[in-house]
């Protein structure tokens, strides 16, 4: 949990302190990872197993044996979405680089005020 929060903060720090756009994206990715970690932690219940209905878990008693499945489902979705966004951002960076040959965020200030 603490690690997650720390990661989120590190990610934010990266986002606002790095001029390089790729590093900024990495900052966001780190923050997302931290968040995902927090989500998993929240769903985790000591002494229980993964919420997968296979041999290790009794189907009827599953609710008592497995950790909360919902956060895990959420994490999966969140990861997918995060990946998609990061990929899209990277594409944008590539396109931007092609236009201006710079990865510095400060070079893209044509739109302002």
């Amino acid at each position, binding site marked *: 949990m603490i690690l997650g929060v720390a990661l989120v903060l590190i990610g934010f720090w990266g986002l606002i302190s790095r001029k390089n756009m790729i590093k900024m994206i990495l900052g*966001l990715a780190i923050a997302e990872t931290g968040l995902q970690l927090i989500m998993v932690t*929240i769903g985790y219940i000591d002494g229980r197993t993964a919420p997968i209905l296979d041999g290790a878990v009794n189907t009827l008693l599953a609710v008592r044996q497995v950790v909360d499945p919902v956060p895990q489902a959420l994490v999966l*979705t969140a990861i997918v*979405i995060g990946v998609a966004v990061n990929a899209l951002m990277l594409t944008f960076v590539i396109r931007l680089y092609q236009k201006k040959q710079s990865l510095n965020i400060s070079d893209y200030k044509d739109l*302002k005020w």
Partner: protein
Amino acid sequence: MVAPIYIPVVALGVSFLLPLFDRFGKKTVNGLFLLTLTFFAAAALRWLSYFSVANSPVIHVFTAGFAPPLSINLQVGLEEALLLAAVNVLALAGAVYLLDHLNAAGTKARVLFLLFTLGMNGLVMTRDIFNLFVFLEITSIAAYALIGLDLKLHSLAAGFKYMIAGSLASIFLLFGIILLYQASGTLNIDGMIAANLSAGNNPLIQGAIFMLFLSFFIEMKQFPANGWALDVYQAAHPGVAAMISAGSSGAIFFALYKIFPLAGDSWYLTAAISGSATFVASNWMALRQKQATRLLGYSSVGQMGLLLAVLGFSFYYRQPHTAYGYILAALFFNHFFAKAGLYWIAGIIKKDKTASWAVLLQNPLLLFFFGLFVLALIGFPPFAGFWGKWALMMNLGGERAWYAISFLLLGSLLEAVYYLRWLGQAVRGEPEKEPLPATDVPQLTVTGLFALISLAVGIWLGGSLLPKDFWTYAFPVILAAVVFLFDGFSVYLRVSASLVVMTFLGYYLYPTAQGISFYFAFIFILGGMLMLMASLYKKERSAGFYPLLILMFSSLAVLTVADTLLGFFMSWELMTVSSYLLILRGRKSREPALLYVLFSLGGALAMLAGFAVLQAVRPGAEYWAELAHAGDYAVIIYFLISLAFLVKVAALGWHIWAPDAYAEAEDDLTAMLSAILSKAGIWGLLLLAVFMGAPLWHSLSLSTVLGWLGTLTAFFATLYAIFQEDAKRLLAWSSIGQVGYIVMGVAMMSHLGWLAALWHTLNHFLFKGLLFLAIAGVIHRTGTRNMYEMGGLIKRMPFTFFSVLIGIIALSGVPPLTGFGGKWLLYEALIEKGWYLQAGVAFFASTIAFLYCYRLIHAIFLGIPKPDQLQVREAPFRILFPQYILIAFIFVFSLKPAWLLKPLSAMVAPYFTPTLGWQGDTAVSSLGYWNGTVMMILVVFIFALVLLNLLWMSRGSKKVKPFNIVYAAEKPDRPQTTHYAWHFFAPYQRAMRPLLKPLVRHFWQGVGEWTATGGSVLRRIYNGNGQSYAMLILLFAIILFALTAGA
């Protein structure tokens, strides 16, 4: 009816299918694409019609066959159906609009568009908070991609900034959701609300709520965390920007509306504060913006702020679904249709700078739509924004939310500034040489469709707020529409139609208007008809002139019978907007019209605030009569409401619009403005006095203040009038001054005072109408307004000369004509009242009036003619005829003042004990007496005798030509140069110099300058750097935290 679940299903299905259909060609893909969107729109409209029947059960859809919380459920009720209908109609229209753009990017673009639509639909329908997150992300990702689709540097950069902001928001959102889940054990929104999480003081839950709403506030583009949004709006293809500004922002707002009950009390106020700040700040920062799409971006952001603020207030005051539901709907749909329409227009004409939008003149239809959208956004009736603004202010007033009222009104005034400036640039900017790009018919069609929907929604909303006398208040619009049907026919037919509808209106109002209100209705309607006849002197009138005139006159007439506050305010706004659009028709009237409408609007907003304050004392007050019970708030209410009227009468301090507007408006329109429109303010002041009397501020009566204001207006305006070179400006200042006298009369709050005011109201109508029409005729023939460029026209235009002569005699108050009646009543009243000093100043002013009267007639008609004007013809009969009707009235009332004065006395009698008695035809006041009839006979008799005497004595007198003047035995080479007209009162100007500093103008210029500069300094925070934007978002988080923790 379609089950809601089919929307996501079909959207996803078609998205997968579209690439497969690629091989069948573009047409098939587009067909399928549009078919899908049509299906959505049709389904949504079907739901809407289903829910329009009261008490229809809400549709629930449970996925996977379980009830929540185990499954995700979708819900469609009335609110959802409204949103879905709007969003899907927008999606369809947007798709039609964007079709070419999307086609250029291939099939994937259409898939993105479908997903974007799906996301919006999902945001509206889902009741599961995590699902909400998913739909939000779908919408956002689709939006990112749509923005970057054109691969332009600006779009990509803007998209990247958007993505940074979006990612941050989604991190916060997810964080919040997971914490909330932990606390409540459910993801279902209804379940969470039922758990009433915010009640406890659990820091974890508060933190979760903080994260959740922080994210939504960022998505709502709150100041200052909204730089990215501005860039997106500016850079994205306008079609895409329209989808984001209206569509996805709207859907996100609705999602926020759904989950808002989760937030605790502290958030309600925070939302109100943040939203108001955003509304004011973004409109403020937009003042110096010249980039069209970015300007729209500022406005969009501001509107989101307004919506959030209203949402906050609605919860803060515990009325989320009653009154505020209406307000939210009105404001939301107003923004929704108008903003989409404006972006589309921006996309059609492809002009970056607002100043280049004059190109719209090449396409009147598009200009018309543009005008409608702008007026809608500013909140003029009958658009939805007007009703929303009204209801919002009345509710906030009832809650005594003074700060909210002032901030929101300030914000909407600022918004009006740049929109109206823009409208002015479009209508009266430098004409563009480049032709308008060939207009795409589907694009024009959807824009027009939205304009119509916007109008229809407005009228529909208005109908529900104006239950009583709906038709009376709707008349002006209906009559204008009727006359609009005649546009394009000959001028004679249009004028005839106008006269017919005015007669009809008079007939309709006749039973309702009584006493003073009848008097004013009489002036407004018959005066209007007379002026309509005069307008015939020009053969050509472009479309819209007569409908607007009818709108102006009939809303003026309706003002006289409006007994409800809303009805009055609506008619007032209609009158303002129609007169503004009329003034804007003048060739150089861009700036003057802007100044006029801004002052008027400022005044109207003050009036609105006044009505709102009344709600605090008399909750639910609807009628003027309730102003009598204003109690402790009487002073502030009187002050606020009177501002609107003082602007209209151009009282000193609020007058700077008047000289320019009068001078630059079309010549016959100026006559109408001065003779008729300025009386609207007088009518308002009378109403205010009837219902509120003269409230006391400590021991100072507000009517004393008003009296001094009138006195000083009369004095300074008259003083300025004498130094004008432009005939119309001279008369404009004169109008301001003359109306100042009327204000004095009203302020006296006595029988004689009101008689003076009412007498002068009619008299000013008569002589100022006469003078302006006569001058219009002169300008029509000579082509100049500068008096020194004329001279000696008495020989060429004797009938016009006679008009002006009678006009100035009536104006200056020289007996025996009607003008004297006004002076006599005024001084008797002033001295009776004990206002001696005011009487002295008024007298001074009226002697100064001789100076400009003489200057007017001398410079134009007397002296030496200009050689190029030797062949000038008399003014057209069509403009002379109304003048002579006015002259006839002047003579009748001069000969028989009793015919007017006695009825007036009866009209005033209900309010004050009469102090004017009669002995035959002699009017007797407490101080003196006056017999206009004997006076007239006496003067005519003596005049005739002297005339006969001179006729006899001067027989054989020879007439000499104007050019053979001689002095010192020398005949000037160019005699016209000796016409003493320019800078006529130079020595007087030297003597009066200390009084001639335009302090008021400087003051207002300063206000304008500083406001605009302040806005442009503030907007520097949006430095274009994506990283700074991210920092601003984090800063916003801190501010928000402080706010919620503090609240």
